[in-house]
């Protein structure tokens, strides 16, 4: 009787409860504690004083202004560049599609601080190579500029390649999977291609474009590496300064909550636009095949745009990284006699990069594994189950997208030095692992959700009808069908976790430096610039090798399966 009751019990609710509990602990507890800290004084009484003090500090006001200005600028520019690129790749016969896709993918996996290292050398206003070239080209008499990387515009330009990638990844599938019947009707009625694009294609793709722009805004809002390297006022820098330079828990909490609130508003708008985008299934056999435009000379315009993007997004910065990493003496510049490989061997001989590499590998492997396992369970409940309250799980799993890494890290420090001080987590690898898992949960859940949505439920229903249990169906039908999506999610989280900076820079302690903080340490003066760049190049090569191995295992190009959250 008891066994029969047990067999009839719907374990989905139990699994739901466990997942919800875990996500509440990971996501809501640091945020909740920061809300408490921000609204209470030293005596624990409710107060708005912290907000008043923080937002009347001129340097914080400047940081907020800079952050919003740069984020909006990146979102707008990313749309202006990303949408034409996505259209060209998805809907035209432009040459160079592989170059564009490769540039987009490299922009996704490149840590932003590596790009900024290169651009500081290229676009330094006094002697940056780009400025020297422009002065020569246009016969300018000035010794300063015309380009100044140490400016808000410089910050925007360095952040745009990443933003373009997000817009591209949202709009490209929208263009590819658009119902062609509306465009065909317009064509039949006599509309020219520009009119069709303006009045049909673009409005249909508007939700995808907006969601890409919102993602670009959100990611830029939360960035840390580039403003740190430029020593510019930015909200994430202010959070770190308040905590690590001022030990001001109240200001830290207040600024973190401000960032979370702005990001949550953006996230809500993003989810609203996502609901307007039709999801699609491929495994069941249905799909759209939109018309590919056979352009004549127009396709070379798209090619030119793609080449310009590729040059600024990765060719120029990586070439700069590699060249400077080969300098014997920085002061002698680019000459044949000044090139050497010893910066690479020196970087490998240092204990800190080796410790960083080992720690990053440990963190990346474990956080990817945990995130993917959580993603399978949570994704399945959201997509397949009829559990009431699964929407809560959906929202909890996507919330970390709206939490800047530094804000999350600050919350973890406050909570593990505050109410949970008895847990020996602060200053160890465990706090980093908690931060990484929390940060990357959306990647795992979202990508596996998408894979599940591409698999028709008919196949699972057929399995259940023929007598298989729920567990057998998951094991023998569902997971094999989504295994490439699972592997892709694992690789994506691994790549992001391996080069993570914004959480790590606050949480690192003795013996817990990671690759990104090791590079930052080198850049901040612990080693010469060429050594820092050599280690940056090695980081990029390692990440690329991991992706190539993953492609070999899955048998297909990861670039074709690129998804964003």
């Amino acid at each position, binding site marked *: 009787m008891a066994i029969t009751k047990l067999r009839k019990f719907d374990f989905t609710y139990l699994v739901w409860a466990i997942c919800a509990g875990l996500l509440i602990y990971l996501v809501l507890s640091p945020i909740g504690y920061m809300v408490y800290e921000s609204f209470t004084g030293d005596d624990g009484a409710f107060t708005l004083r912290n907000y008043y003090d923080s937002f009347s500090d001129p340097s914080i006001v400047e940081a907020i202004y800079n952050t919003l200005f740069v984020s909006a600028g990146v979102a707008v520019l990313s749309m202006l560049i990303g949408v034409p690129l996505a259209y060209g790749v998805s809907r035209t016969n432009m040459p160079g599609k592989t170059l564009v896709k490769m540039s987009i993918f490299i922009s996704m996996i490149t840590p932003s601080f590596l790009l900024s290292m290169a651009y500081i050398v290229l676009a330094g206003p006094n002697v940056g190579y780009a400025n020297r070239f422009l002065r020569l080209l246009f016969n300018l008499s000035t010794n300063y500029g015309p380009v100044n990387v140490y400016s808000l515009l410089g910050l925007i330009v360095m952040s745009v390649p990443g933003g373009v990638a997000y817009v591209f990844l949202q709009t490209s599938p929208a263009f590819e999977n658009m119902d062609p019947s509306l465009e065909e009707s317009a064509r039949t009625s006599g509309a020219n291609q520009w009119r069709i694009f303006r009045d049909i294609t673009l409005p249909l793709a508007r939700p995808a474009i907006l969601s890409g722009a919102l993602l670009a805004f959100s990611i830029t809002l939360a960035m840390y590496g580039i403003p740190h390297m430029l020593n510019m006022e930015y909200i994430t820098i202010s959070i770190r300064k308040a905590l690590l330079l001022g030990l001001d828990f109240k200001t830290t909490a207040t600024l973190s909550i401000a960032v979370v609130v702005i990001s949550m508003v953006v996230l809500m708008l993003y989810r609203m636009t996502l609901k307007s985008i039709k999801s699609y299934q491929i495994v069941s056999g249905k799909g759209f095949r939109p018309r590919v435009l056979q352009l004549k000379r127009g396709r070379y315009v798209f090619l030119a745009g793609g080449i310009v993007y590729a040059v600024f997004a990765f060719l120029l910065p990586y070439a700069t990284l590699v060249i400077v990493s080969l300098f014997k003496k*920085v002061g002698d510049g680019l000459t044949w006699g000044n090139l050497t490989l010893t910066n690479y061997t020196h970087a490998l001989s240092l204990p800190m990069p080796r410790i960083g590499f080992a720690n990053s590998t440990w963190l990346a492997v474990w956080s990817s594994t945990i995130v993917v396992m959580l993603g399978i369970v949570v994704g399945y409940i959201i997509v397949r189950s009829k559990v009431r309250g699964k929407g809560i799980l959906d929202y909890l799993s996507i919330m970390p997208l709206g939490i800047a890494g530094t804000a999350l890290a600050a919350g973890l420090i406050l909570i593990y030095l505050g109410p949970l001080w008895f847990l020996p987590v602060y200053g160890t690898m465990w706090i980093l692992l908690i931060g990484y898992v929390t940060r990357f949960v959306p990647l795992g859940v979202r990508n596996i959700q998408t894979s599940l949505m591409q698999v028709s439920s008919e196949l699972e229903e057929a399995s259940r009808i023929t007598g298989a249990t729920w567990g057998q169906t998951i094991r023998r039908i569902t997971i094999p069908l989504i295994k490439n999506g699972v592997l892709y999610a694992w690789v994506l989280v691994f790549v992001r976790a391996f080069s993570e900076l914004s959480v790590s820079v606050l949480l690192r302690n003795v013996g817990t430096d990671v690759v990104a903080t090791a590079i930052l340490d080198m850049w901040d003066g612990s080693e010469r610039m060429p050594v820092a760049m050599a280690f940056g190049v090695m980081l990029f090569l390692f990440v690329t090798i991991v992706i190539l191995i993953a492609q070999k295992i899955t048998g297909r190009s990861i670039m074709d399966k690129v998804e964003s959250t």
Partner: protein
Amino acid sequence: MIRRAKGLVIVVTLLVMVSVIGTVVQAKNLTIYYGMGRDHFAPVIAAFTEATGIQVDEFRAPTEEMITTVELELRVRRPKADVIVAAEPQMRSLQSKYDAFLEYTPKEQDKLIPSMQVYTPLYTPLGMQLYILAYNSNLISADDAPKSWAELLNPKWQNQIAIADPKSSASVHGALWFVAQYLGEEVGAPYGWEFFNELAKLNPTLTSGHGPIRDLIQTGERPLGVQLISSEIPQYLAGEPVRWNIPEEGTPVETQLAAIIKGAENVEDAQAFLDWLVSVEGQTANWDHAVLIPARDDVDYEFPDGTKAGDYTLVPIIAEEVDRDLNMKQIDEAMKNARYN
């Protein structure tokens, strides 16, 4: 079935291996926290390990950040460091707030020069560093290069200067104290805080520390820097185009100190480290790697031009007078006023 089992075994083995790697890197040894450049102090620690066999775990962060990490750990009464190494003002601040340090008199304390002996038994002096005006010799000639603090205010240095940001760097507070307070009171104009208001109009770059100043000077992006001599001597010896002047008005001298944290787990090893630091071998290593002017006069050193610290006008920083909050606020305001006026 067999292939699946093999795959599972491989995955589990990899996870276990990775876990072991993660565990190995966290082994606990004598733990030293410091704020100096890693390229300066890591070799000193390595020399200590070679001499004594004592293994060391090190944590390095910009000094202000390192000190805050120590404060966070002291607040929860779980200090991880055994020894802290930092500049005098920061060490005194830690001691006054938390009564953080254990008294210990190193074995050869009596061999230190008298002005260094006053720091014991609470602190152990490593050595001294002083501020210079460093420049890229490919871009600025020796005649043109500023030879005094006052010459820095020449308008021809617009967009050419780099200086450390007091919000990140600990050492620069000494330089700010010297020019704003010491020279401001002893001499008057153009020194005092007005000096920095005028300097801000020349659009200097504020850097997170002295390492970036070194890189900015070498690349020529900011060919003139308010810099620590310890950051530039190794570059000069490596053949980089850097030279410097020690300002005619004088320059502040900062003492780097070490101390044992109360509650340290490895007190004996920590004491051995302090003993070694003041020994001839330790003082030689401090000069050779960290370019700290020795705290004993039986350890020989000289600057690349053959001079020594005593040939210049040096002013020891009075740590009690260094107001970090005031320095940060004044520089912030000076830079904002210059930007918006």
